[in-house]
């Protein structure tokens, strides 16, 4: 066995010792739980489901305030403004780069 092989073997031993020491420290820091504490006492899923359902109902109620749906309704005035802006862009296309810059 040459010197290089000896060094490698001693490094491997040192690493194994370190890993064992870390394992030992971890086991000391986190002792295993007793078997009666491994699972919750009651089934938590029905409570979580009820909570999700109530949150869903609240969100739906918030989005339909006073029975109005969230559908967007565009007024005639806004259509007129849109037409005006579109016409201006068609007649003066030079506006487009200025708008792009400031958008």
């Amino acid at each position, binding site marked *: 066995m040459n010197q290089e092989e000896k060094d490698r073997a001693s490094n491997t031993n040192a690493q194994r010792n370190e890993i064992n020491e870390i394992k030992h420290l971890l086991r000391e820091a986190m002792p295993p739980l007793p078997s009666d504490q491994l699972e919750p006492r009651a089934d938590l899923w029905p409570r979580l489901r009820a909570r999700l359902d109530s949150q869903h109902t609240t969100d739906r109620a918030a989005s339909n305030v006073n029975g109005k749906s969230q559908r967007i309704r565009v007024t005639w005035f806004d259509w007129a*403004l849109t037409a*005006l802006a579109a016409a201006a862009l068609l007649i003066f296309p030079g506006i487009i780069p200025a708008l792009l810059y400031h*958008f």
Partner: protein
Amino acid sequence: MNQHAYLRAYMAGIVVPTIFLLLAATAFTIARYVYNVPVPIERVIVFPMAVVPNLWGLWNIFFIASHQRTRLSIGIHGAILPLILGPLGILMTSLLDFTIPDFATHIFPVAAPVALIVYYLVWKYFVGSLNQIVGIA
């Protein structure tokens, strides 16, 4: 659902200009490098890329913070923003020693009201919808 209202306002505010920036940057890049438009856009592109989306976010925060007192509609609130962005953009171009093309200065009297209209509509319908979606409208 009322937690972090300002953070949600900021995020809702930056959506539209951030998406639109993709189109604008593409248009500018094609104009500059494909059609060789002799305007050094890359020197001033930092304004639409960094300042505009952040200002939109901050402006939406300002809307949420001030709406109780001012009762201003979101469209009108948004239409005020070009009055800040316009001078800021001009200041930025002059600081960066960027010569504004002649056609842009001549077109300003038409471009200004169009910008107000576009901002009014975009804030009313797009930012307003986003505010509703994130639950701060």
